[in-house]
C-alpha cells in the first residue's frame, strides 16, 4: 500500500517538477531577452551618443600657454627670467564637494585663509570649463609628496609644472621693468574674443613698466593640445598638439650695472635717477627709490605683504618717482636762458644789478632769491646770463621771465618736452605741468596773473616736471637742439629695433647756434667754475663735484635745483628757531650731461637726479649725478680721456662708433 502510493506520487511529482522547470526556463529566456534588448538599446541605438560621451570623458582640449619672452638689459644680463615651479591646481568640475576637498587639503598642506580667498577669487573669474585653476603656486617638495600620496582621495586636484616670471635683480628695476601678476577681472573684460582665446592658458599679464608696455611682444601665441585624461584628471596621453609660439625676447637700453650704481648713489634717500644716452635716446638707467620686490606680485602677493607696501605713506615704494612730476626748481634756468637769447630778451652782454629780490611794478610783494636764503644777505650784484646760471640767480630769471611772458615761455619750453611725454615706449609716464593761460583757466577757472609768471621762471608755482622729462630736456641741450626721443626697447630677438614714431618731435632750432655753446659753457661753469676772489662767482656745484674730485678727467655740464615743498619764510628759516620736518624739506635736483666742451667726443650721457626732501641740489643731488656719470663714462664705456687729449684719433673714432 505504502509502496504503491509512493510510486504513483513519484510520477506525479516528476511531471509537476518538469512543468515548473519549463516555466522557469521560459522565465530565464524572457529575462535574458529583456537584457539583450537593453544591451541592443545601449550598444546599437545609443552607440553614437555613448561613444561621444566616452570621448568627452577622456578627451580634453587644453591650451598650451606660450613661454613669455625674456627681458635682457643692454649687456645681456637677464632682467626677467622664467623659472619652473610646481602649482597645485584644481579643476572645479571634477571636484565633488569643494569645501570638503579644501578642508582635507588643509589637513595635508595647511591652506591659509588668504590662499582660500585668492583661490575663490580666481574661481569666480570667467574661465573655460574644465580648465585648471591654481590653488597654490610653488609647492614644496614635501607638500608635493603629500598630495601625490593622497591623490586618489583628491579627484580634480593636480600638480602642474609652470614657468613663472622671476626677476633676478629683485628691487633693482622694479618700476621700469615692471612685473607680471595674475590677470584680473577688469583685464579679462577688456579682452576681445581673440585675446581671450590667446590668454586661455595664461595666468599672468604684465601690470607695470616694460612688462605692460610690451605685453603683446612678450606674451606670444597660445598653443593647443588634445589630451586623454583619467577620472582623476591626470593626463595619460597627448593625442594632438599645436605648439604655442613663444613670446619675443627683448633687450633694453637699460644697463643693469649703471642701474646698480645709480641705486647705490641715492643711498638712503628717496628719489629717482634717469640717465639717457643722448645719441640714441636709449634709457641707460631709470631708478626709483625705494623699490620693491616685483617677485612678490608674480605668484599672488599676500594681503600682508601688500598692505606693507601701500600703507607706507612716506616711502611709497610702489610709487614710481622717475615718471611722476615734482617742481623742477632752478633746473629749468638753462632752458629759460636759451629762450631769452633766442627771443632777443637778453644777449651775452646783458646784465642786471641784483639786490637779492625782485619786485613787479606796482606790487608790494618782493620775490626773494631763494638760492641766497641760507647765505649772508644781499644780492648777486652785477649779473649776466652766464653768472645767473652758474650762480643760479633767481632775480635775473624773475626779470627775464617777466619780460618773456607766459605765452612765449610756454611755447619755448614745450619744445624740450615740458608738459609733454616725449618717451617712445613709456606711455605711463606723467606729463607734469607746463603752465599756460589756457591751462590755468581750464584747471583752476582763473585768469593768469603776472605773479604766476614770476614763480614759473624759477621752476616753482604751477610748473611740474618728471625726472624723465628733465633728463630728456637736458639731452636736447647736449645734442644742441636735436631731439632724440627717449626709449627703453633696444632689440627684439637680437634684431635692433627702430620704433615707428607717429608724430616725431621737431628739433629745437635757435637763431644763433652759438647759443648752444654759450649755454653749455654756462652749465659747465656750474660744475667747474672754481672759487675765486670775487664774491659769488663760483659754480654752485663746484665744491660738491669738481672740487671733490680734482682728478675728474672730463667736463660735465650741469644745473642744480632745489624745489620748495612748502613755503617757509626766510626769516624763520634763518632764525633757526624751528626744525623743518623731513617731508617738508626742499627737493634736491640736478641735471647734467657729459662729456661737455670736448672737441673729440660728443656727450654720451644725460642725467636727471631727483632727491626727495634732499634739501640741496648741488651738494646732495650733484654728487649722485657725478657718480653715475663717472660709472658710465669711465667704467662702462671706458673712455680714456687722457689718450683723447693726446690726439689718438683711432681711439676716438672707435669710441664715437
Amino acid at each position: 500500500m505504502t509502496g504503491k502510493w509512493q510510486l504513483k506520487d513519484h510520477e506525479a511529482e516528476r511531471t509537476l517538477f518538469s512543468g515548473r522547470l519549463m516555466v522557469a526556463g521560459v522565465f530565464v529566456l524572457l529575462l535574458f531577452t529583456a537584457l539583450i534588448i537593453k544591451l541592443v538599446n545601449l550598444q546599437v541605438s545609443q552607440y553614437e551618443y555613448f561613444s561621444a560621451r566616452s570621448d568627452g570623458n577622456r578627451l580634453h582640449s587644453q591650451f598650451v600657454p606660450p613661454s613669455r619672452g625674456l627681458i635682457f638689459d643692454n649687456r645681456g644680463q637677464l632682467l626677467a627670467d622664467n623659472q619652473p615651479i610646481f602649482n597645485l591646481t584644481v579643476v572645479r568640475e571634477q571636484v565633488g564637494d569643494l569645501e570638503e576637498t579644501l578642508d582635507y587639503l588643509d589637513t595635508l598642506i595647511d591652506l591659509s585663509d588668504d590662499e582660500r580667498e585668492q583661490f575663490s577669487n580666481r574661481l569666480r573669474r570667467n574661465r573655460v570649463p574644465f580648465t585648471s585653476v591654481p590653488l597654490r603656486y610653488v609647492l614644496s617638495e614635501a607638500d608635493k609628496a603629500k598630495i601625490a600620496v593622497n591623490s586618489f582621495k583628491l579627484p580634480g586636484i593636480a600638480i602642474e609644472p609652470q614657468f613663472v616670471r622671476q626677476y633676478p635683480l629683485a628691487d633693482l628695476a622694479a618700476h621700469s621693468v615692471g612685473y607680471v601678476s595674475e590677470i584680473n577681472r577688469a583685464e579679462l573684460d577688456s579682452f576681445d574674443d581673440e585675446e581671450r582665446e590667446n590668454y586661455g592658458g595664461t595666468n599672468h599679464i604684465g601690470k607695470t613698466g616694460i612688462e605692460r608696455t610690451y605685453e603683446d611682444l612678450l606674451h606670444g601665441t597660445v598653443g593647443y593640445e588634445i589630451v586623454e585624461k583619467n577620472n582623476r584628471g591626470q593626463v595619460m596621453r597627448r593625442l594632438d598638439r599645436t605648439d604655442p609660439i613663444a613670446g619675443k625676447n627683448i633687450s633694453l637700453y637699460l644697463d643693469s650695472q649703471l642701474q646698480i650704481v645709480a641705486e647705490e648713489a641715492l643711498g638712503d634717500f628717496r628719489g629717482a635717477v634717469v640717465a639717457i644716452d643722448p645719441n640714441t635716446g636709449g634709457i641707460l638707467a631709470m631708478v626709483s627709490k625705494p623699490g620693491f620686490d616685483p617677485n612678490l606680485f608674480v605668484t599672488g602677493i599676500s594681503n600682508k605683504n601688500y598692505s606693507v607696501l601701500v600703507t607706507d605713506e612716506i616711502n611709497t615704494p610702489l610709487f614710481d618717482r622717475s615718471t611722476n612730476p615734482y617742481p623742477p626748481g632752478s633746473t629749468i634756468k638753462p632752458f629759460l636762458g636759451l629762450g631769452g637769447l633766442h627771443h632777443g630778451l637778453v644777449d651775452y652782454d646783458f646784465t642786471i644789478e641784483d639786490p637779492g629780490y625782485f619786485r613787479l611794478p606796482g606790487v608790494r610783494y618782493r620775490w626773494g632769491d631763494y638760492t641766497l636764503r641760507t647765505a649772508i644777505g644781499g644780492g648777486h650784484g652785477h649779473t649776466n646770463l652766464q653768472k645767473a646760471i652758474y650762480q643760479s640767480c633767481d632775480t635775473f630769471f624773475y626779470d627775464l621771465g617777466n619780460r618773456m611772458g607766459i605765452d612765449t615761455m610756454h611755447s619755448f619750453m614745450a619744445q624740450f618736452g615740458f608738459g609733454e611725454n616725449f618717451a617712445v615706449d613709456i606711455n605711463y609716464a606723467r606729463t607734469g605741468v607746463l603752465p599756460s593761460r589756457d591751462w590755468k583757466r581750464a584747471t583752476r577757472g582763473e585768469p593768469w596773473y603776472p605773479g604766476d609768471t614770476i614763480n614759473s621762471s624759477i621752476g616753482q608755482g604751477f610748473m611740474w616736471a618728471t625726472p624723465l622729462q628733465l633728463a630728456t630736456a637736458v639731452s636736447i641741450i647736449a645734442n644742441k637742439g636735436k631731439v632724440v626721443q627717449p626709449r627703453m626697447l633696444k632689440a627684439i630677438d637680437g634684431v635692433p629695433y627702430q620704433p615707428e614714431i607717429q608724430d616725431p618731435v621737431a628739433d629745437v632750432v635757435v637763431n644763433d647756434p652759438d647759443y648752444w655753446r654759450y649755454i653749455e659753457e654756462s652749465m659747465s661753469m656750474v660744475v667747474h667754475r672754481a672759487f675765486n676772489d670775487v664774491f659769488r662767482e663760483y659754480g654752485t656745484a663746484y665744491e660738491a663735484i669738481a672740487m671733490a674730485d680734482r682728478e675728474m678727467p672730463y667736463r660735465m655740464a650741469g644745473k642744480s635745483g632745489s624745489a620748495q615743498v612748502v613755503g617757509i619764510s626766510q626769516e624763520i628759516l634763518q632764525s633757526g628757531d624751528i626744525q623743518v620736518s623731513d617731508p617738508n624739506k626742499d627737493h634736491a635736483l640736478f641735471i647734467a650731461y657729459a662729456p661737455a666742451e670736448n672737441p673729440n667726443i660728443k656727450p654720451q650721457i644725460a642725467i636727471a637726479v631727483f632727491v626727495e626732501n634732499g634739501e640741496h641740489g648741488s651738494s646732495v643731488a650733484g654728487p649722485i649725478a657725478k657718480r653715475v656719470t663717472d660709472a658710465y663714462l669711465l667704467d662702462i664705456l671706458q673712455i680714456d680721456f687722457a689718450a683723447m687729449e693726446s690726439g689718438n684719433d683711432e681711439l676716438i673714432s672707435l669710441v664715437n662708433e
Partner: protein
Amino acid sequence: MNNQDFIRQSDGLDSKSRYAKSIWQAIHTDPPLLLGISLLCGFGLFVLFSASGGDVPVVRRQALTMVVGLVVMFIVAQFNVHFFRQWAPTLYAAGIGLLGLVLVVGVAKNGAKSWLDLPGLPSFQPSELMKFVVPMLVAWYLASRPLPPRFKHLFWSAVMILVPAALIIIQNDTGTAIMVTMSGIFVVLLAGIRWRIVIAGFIALLLASPAWFIFLAQEHQKNRILTFFNPYRDPTGAGYNIIQSQIAIGSGGLYGKGWGQGAQSHLDFIPESNTDFILAVLAEEFGLFGVLLLISVYLFVLARGCYIAYAANDTFSRLLAGSITLTFFFYVFVNMAMVSGLLPVIGLPLPLISRGGTSVVTLFIGFGLLMSIQTHGHSRAI
C-alpha cells in the same frame, strides 16, 4: 526507507555496466558542464587581464582560485548526493551555529561582519555555505512530503529559509541574504507550490515594497533605488557608477573597442571594474557580440543544469539541481541587469568572470553537487 533499499539494490546490479560506460562517469564528472564552466573561467581570466590593466599577479591569483574551485567541485562530485541528503539537517544546524558564532566573534570586511577567522582554518564566510545548505534542507524537507506542498509544509519551509536569511541580514550582508532566500524559494517554486500562492505572494511583495522603502530602507538603499530611476539626479555621486558603466557599454557598440582598448576602464572611469562591474569592461572591449557570446555560454551551462535536474531520479536531487541552476541564473541576470541599468545596483559579482575568492568556491560546490546528481543517480534510472 523502502525506496532507498530498492535503490541500493539496483545500484549494485548496474554497477558493472556503469563503469564500462565511460571514464567520465567513473570520475563523477559531467563533460558538458565542465566544458561550459571551463569556457566561462577562460573568458573570465581573459577579461580580467584587461580589466586589471594587465596585472599578471591578479590574474594568476584568480586562476589559482579557479583551480582550487575545480578541485573542490571534483571532491564534492565524488560523494553520492544522498550523502548530502542524509546530512542536510546536520549541515543546516551547523550552519546556523556558525552564523550565530559570526555574530559574536565575526570579523568585518568591506562593511559586512560576515567572516570567521577560526584558528587552523582559512578565514571564510558561513553565509556562503548557506547558499547550498538552505536549498538542501528545504529539498530534504519537501522531498519526503507529498507534493505539491501543503500550507503547513510551506510554513516550515519559510522558517527554514528566513532564519538564516535574518541572521545574514544582521551581519549587514543584504546581497548574500537575498541569494540564500532565493535559493530556498527556488526549491519551493520547483516543488510545485500553487500558482495562486505565488501570485498572492508576489502581489503582497509589491504592496509591501513602498512601506519598506519608506520605513525600513536604509539611506544608501533608498539612494540606489532613486538613482536607478534617474542616474542623473547625482551624476558625480550615487549615479556615477551606473552612468560610467552605461557609457562604457554603449560606447562598445557592436564589435567593441578591442581587447585592452577600453578607454572607460583603462582610464579608471569604471569603478569596481575587476569585480561587480566587469561586464562593462567586457561590453566596452568586445561589444554586443562579446556579451552575446558570454550569454550563450551561460545559457549552455544553465541548459545543462536544467537537464541534470530534469533527468534526476528522485525529488531531492531534482529540487536541489533545479535550485542550484536557477540560483546561478539569478546571479548572472541580476549582475548583468544591474550593470546595464535594468535593475538597481546590488553588490553581486558576475559568476566566474568577476574577481573574487569565497563566492567562486561556493559556485564550484554547487557545480560539484550538480555533477554528483548527474553521475551518481543515472544508473538508477534503468
